[in-house]
């Protein structure tokens, strides 16, 4: 059932929701959360479709906030709210309200959304595109326990990752992180099978795909080893290679769906690792509403620390430990220390020198440079200096 409301208010929308529910004969609500989707007209359809699919697992009230562009000064002074209320079969399993905001009210979307939130139920805000720089401080983001952004959809994904890490607030999450859950679980499963010390890792994937950086940062953060990010033509992530004291472990996915897991001394095995639909990502995202500390920790590792220095060397406090780890590569230890100093003063593009000397990482210089370029331009990332 669909109810169209033109030039309306939140209380009229609430009335329409109750009316709609009565009309289809199910006055009780079993919805578990409110999902607010903030988007433009262009992305609204796909986002809503994904949310409706996800609502089969998480029945929710979905509020789609579409801010319309005003094209003249006169338009900008007038303000209007249009709403489309859908209940029953038209709205997945739950209710959907599509809100179109014109003129001044589009700067005050939270005033429309607040009265429409389900009582006492968690709120999730999702920006499919154009997420604010600081989601938690955004007026709509402030209403939510969980703020879902997607760096994959941004112009400069790698730079945006740094920005996300600067503004991280518990409850923030990124669909680019959600995308790599199957990879992470398969890599963890691989290490369940072999007891080994990982010495170095290479993460290979297409350019402008922040999932590769996130996976690399997660591995670097958990394993405390140098992680190299190299480029391929995709689709998405294509391979992770771990160099261990028991031989290489490789998870290779060339075609975007079926991967091969190779462990030295064990037969190669096929693993289904399909790239997932947005609906599946949203469903996973809604499954847990508590802060994702693992994501925070991976994000805070810092993009600029990939490709260059073994993790321990950077952490000043752990210098002793770093030296110990570097006994085998005594010659390089000096170079690494230098690099760490250099990094403190210069943007990361210059700091990539030592990566070339790394024995573990395979030569793929063009790749490393390309990735570094993206991270550094057009403005130097301040974080390296800050650390």
């Amino acid at each position, binding site marked *: 059932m669909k109810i169209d409301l033109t030039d309306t208010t939140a209380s009229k929308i609430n009335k329409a929701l109750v009316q709609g529910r009565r009309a289809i004969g199910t006055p009780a609500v079993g919805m578990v959360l409110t999902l607010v989707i903030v988007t433009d007209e262009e992305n609204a359809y796909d986002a809503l479709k994904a949310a409706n699919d996800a609502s*089969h697992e998480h029945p929710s009230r979905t509020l789609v906030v579409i801010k319309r562009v005003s094209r003249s000064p006169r338009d900008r002074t007038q303000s209007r709210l249009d709403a489309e209320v859908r209940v029953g079969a038209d709205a997945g399993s739950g209710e959907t309200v599509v809100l179109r905001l014109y003129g001044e009210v589009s700067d005050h979307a939270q005033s429309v959304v607040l009265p429409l939130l389900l009582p006492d139920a968690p709120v999730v805000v999702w920006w499919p595109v154009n997420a604010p720089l600081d989601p938690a401080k955004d007026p709509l983001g402030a209403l939510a326990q969980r703020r879902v952004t997607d760096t994959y959809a941004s112009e400069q994904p790698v730079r945006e990752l740094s920005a996300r890490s600067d503004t991280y607030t518990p409850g923030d999450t990124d669909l680019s992180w959600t995308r790599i859950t199957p990879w992470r679980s398969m890599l*963890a499963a*691989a290490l*369940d099978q072999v007891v080994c010390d990982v010495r170095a890792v290479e993460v290979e994937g297409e350019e402008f795909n922040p999932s590769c950086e996130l996976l690399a940062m997660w591995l670097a953060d958990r*394993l*405390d080893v140098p992680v190299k990010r190299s480029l391929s033509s995709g689709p998405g992530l294509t391979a992770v290679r771990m160099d261990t004291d028991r031989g290489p472990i490789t998870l290779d996915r060339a075609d975007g769906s079926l991967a091969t897991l190779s462990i030295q001394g064990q*037969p190669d095995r096929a693993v289904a690792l399909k790239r997932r639909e947005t609906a599946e990502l949203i469903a996973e995202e809604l499954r847990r509403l508590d802060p994702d500390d693992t994501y925070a920790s991976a994000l805070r590792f810092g993009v600029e620390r990939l490709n260059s220095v073994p993790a321990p060397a950077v952490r000043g406090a752990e210098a002793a430990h770093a030296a110990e780890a570097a006994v085998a590569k005594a010659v390089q230890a000096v170079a690494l220390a230098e690099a760490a100093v250099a990094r403190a003063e210069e943007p990361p593009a210059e700091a990539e020198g030592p990566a070339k000397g790394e024995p573990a990482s395979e030569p793929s210089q063009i790749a490393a440079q390309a990735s570094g370029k993206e991270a550094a331009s057009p403005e130097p990332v301040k974080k390296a200096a800050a650390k």
Partner: protein
Amino acid sequence: MPPFNVTEANPLRDAADRRLPRIAGPSGLVIFGVTGDLSRKKLMPAVYDLANRGLLPPGFSLVGFARREWAHEDFAQEVHDAVKEHARTPFREEVWHQLIQGMRFVQGTFDDDDAFERLRGTIEELDKAQGTGGNFAFYLSVPPRSFPVVIQQLKKHGLADQTGGSWRRAVIEKPFGHDLKSAEQLNKVVHEVFAPDQVFRIDHYLGKETVQNILALRFANTMFEPIWNRSFVDHVQITMAEDIGIGGRAGYYDGIGAARDVIQNHLLQLMALTAMEEPASFDADALAAEKTKVLGAVRLPKDLGRDTVFAQYAAGWQGGEKAVGYLQEEGTDANSKTDTYAAIKLGIDNRRWAGVPFYLRTGKRLGRRVTEIAVVFQRAPHSPFDTTATEELGQNAIVIRVQPDEGVTVRFGSKVPGTSMEIRDVSMDFAYGESFTESSPEAYERLILDVLLGDSNLFPRTEEVELSWKILDPIEEYWDTHGSPAQYPSGTWGPVEADEMLERDGRSWRRP
């Protein structure tokens, strides 16, 4: 090869990282009786669904064992068809591709030594080709009389030997014997070959989301537990009704009956979960301890003739279709005393439940297919409203619907709108399909994964099985020697004798 199960040492694992699912370690599943219905409709689809959800280890292998003359490809085709028809999740080519590499078929009968040698060869080959690491679970989807021979064959051919940190597990389906003696015998046979903690008894009811939710409902909330005792509860009704007859299973069913088939395992387990005390933790030992305690405290009624009923369905109409009576079913003995309906009244002798009757009933060809637990509360000790106002008011109840339409209903009184004071029962409903996933995992998915992980939370143990038989045996003996089964028309809610049994206590059965 290095030892497995080193999750603690894995730097990529972190308890706080809750997105990472529990993936079983390297392992394989061997299904005996792979051509059977259960295997086709439940086990194979469950394996596929697990793979599709990314919960099976890379290299997971599935070995079928049956008499049929199949090549590996025929077996793969059979699994393919079963998956396409019955799997819960959409069919995906790349998942299938992952699975098919580890699929093998071994042809043979259970007494065929060569076949078991071939099975051993297959397992060794899989260890090499798929890296299963010697970890195999043997799923015995076979008639009970074949249990001992299969188990012995496994032992004889060294298939049950755990070497170098690998595991071998046995999964067995009900019935776990047909009385205490045979159950003890079966346990002896199985435990001779497999250690008790490597034996998994599948009671698929315990894999259902709603059954697990009984524990969440009771022990994660504050509002139910304070009234979950004799001071507030009047009685408890646990029902499992089927609308179908015995179908073509007369050979299995005749002589077993509803009580042995359903009450001994499913209903007594549901009762244990409903009545048990809070476990110290949610691990297998603590749960089993509480369930065992409550099953050990079960008291049978003094007069079994008065407080138990057994019956058979007679011809009638079930949901618009004509149905024959049990005795007219093909393959049943015309003088059979087998019960297709059983209702019993049990007490639990402890401080929490003394004096609260638990009514358990199950039957075939009843009104509709439903399984539910109804906790019915006492009436308010005093009502300020006059009797005409509360004439229509029943007793408050919390009903846990196990299947279908899984959920929880709370029934309480509410004022009928209007100028006069009139109070009537209303229901407040929580449906799993509505409030959480419409597509919650099938019970078998959860249970197979638990077997591979070695997590025995949801599997009844030897003591529980033996205690259940101790409860049921005297009743079955009484039925054998006293009277003959009552008759009830197909498509109704059971014999009048069952209604009378509750009427004598001043109560009545819920219409589920």
